[in-house]
């Protein structure tokens, strides 16, 4: 009973906050509306018994959205939404496409004869996940790891405009890096 109420509350919250992301004017509020949508989904994941993944979603998404807020405010023209402005293009076409996709998905969901439940959940799901990632799915894990590492390198290269010649001089012989602010190693 409680879980049914929780489901409806969280599901509606996820949808409403998701909708607000494209309705609110203030970029700060938009970011935290998206965060609220994620938190509602994390609640649903917890409701399904995936405690570790649910909590990890909370952890990851809070960090991610706080960082996102920083970037939002850096780059958007009107971060506080003090002067409402439209940031849409081709609204009608997008709405039609999204609507058609939604209807197609709903049709699929309602028409397909879904398989029935098979098997029992492992007693310790977190342990089972860890065992899968370190065992049968090791390749997935390693791919993720390498991809993350590649992302770190690529994002740093893309986003900075200072190379080691800027920091250590043309002959790379400066003892301490010449940075505008401390905190960079060297």
């Amino acid at each position: 009973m409680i879980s049914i109420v929780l489901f409806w509350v969280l599901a509606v919250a996820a949808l409403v906050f998701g909708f607000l992301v494209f309705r609110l004017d203030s970029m700060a509020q938009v970011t935290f509306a998206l965060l609220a949508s994620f938190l509602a989904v994390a609640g649903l994941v917890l409701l399904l018994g995936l405690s570790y993944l649910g909590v990890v979603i909370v952890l990851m998404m809070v960090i991610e959205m706080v960082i996102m807020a920083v970037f939002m405010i850096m780059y958007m023209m009107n971060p506080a939404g003090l002067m409402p402005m439209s940031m849409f293009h081709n609204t009608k076409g997008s709405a039609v496409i999204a609507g058609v996709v939604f209807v197609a998905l709903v049709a699929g969901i309602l028409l397909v004869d879904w398989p029935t439940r098979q098997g029992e959940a492992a007693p310790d799901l977190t342990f089972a996940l860890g065992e899968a990632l370190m065992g049968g799915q090791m390749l997935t894990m390693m791919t993720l790891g390498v991809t993350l590492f590649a992302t770190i390198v690529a994002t740093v290269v893309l986003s900075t405009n200072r190379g080691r010649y800027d920091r250590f001089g043309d002959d790379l012989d400066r003892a301490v890096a010449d940075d505008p602010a401390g905190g960079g190693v060297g």
Partner: protein
Amino acid sequence: MADALPLWSVVLLPVLLVVVTWATVAFDAALTARAAGGPSGVGAALAVPVRETARLLVGQRRRTVAADVVLGRVGGAVLPVAALLAAAVLPWGRLPVADLDVGVVWFNAMEVLAWAAVWMVGWGSNSALALVGGYRFVAQGLAYELPHMFAIITAALGAESLRVTDIVDAQQDLWFVVIMPVAFVVYLLSAAAMTFWGPFDAPVSRDVAGGAAAELSGIDRLVFAGGRWMLFVAAAAMAVPLFLGGGGGPWLPAWLWVAVKTAAVLALLVWLRRKVPTLRMDRWTEFAWVVLIPATIAQALVVAIVVLQRGGM
């Protein structure tokens, strides 16, 4: 969650957290009074939090121009709620209010909510100094979250469980502080940083007029400051089950040991703040990235090898 504390503990938890926070604030006030040469004594110190609370309760809320009231209020309210939810996995003696199977991850997730909260409060009042405070905390949180997480995970690794009570049980013979001292020290440092406690209090420091809380007054300030203190108490108290053997100890009952150890950790952190000036952000984020993270990873590796040697897994 078969053997959790009875239901009334849910009601008692906030009361207990507030009482411990009150005692901590009073201790801090006593030290302040001693340094300033003002009236000292237990009674005077205990009265300070009460007086301050009453003053803030009747104080008027300050309004700033074009403030983002929604985010500011939500951010302020999130702090005490996060502290309370984090405290739910702290064992009082043998059992916590909620003995989650992913207790330590839960605890960390609740601490991270404070990031969003402080940033929202800093943003909410539409004031430059407050926003500087909010941004400082984001940078500090980013730098200290990883060492913090590694330190917590090292304890979980030693116990081969994410459940807080399992971690306590694994320390029956030997406290984890003995076999993972680096993780313990890093935990205390990063817990201070995650709750912007001095010397990591740049987000709310005096040089930006109170930072994220610069424009808060009345009930808003009470909720923010109270929530911050409660979060600090919860983070300090977590060191006890993670590294100091929880309620384990001779002669005394478990709950008393928890109280004694928690008081010791709190006293240490409160005392430490007075010894050192606020550390500059850029120096200490660098320290976190190049010293603390490798140190905690090495520590986790050592513990992992010990666990494997012992024939775990």
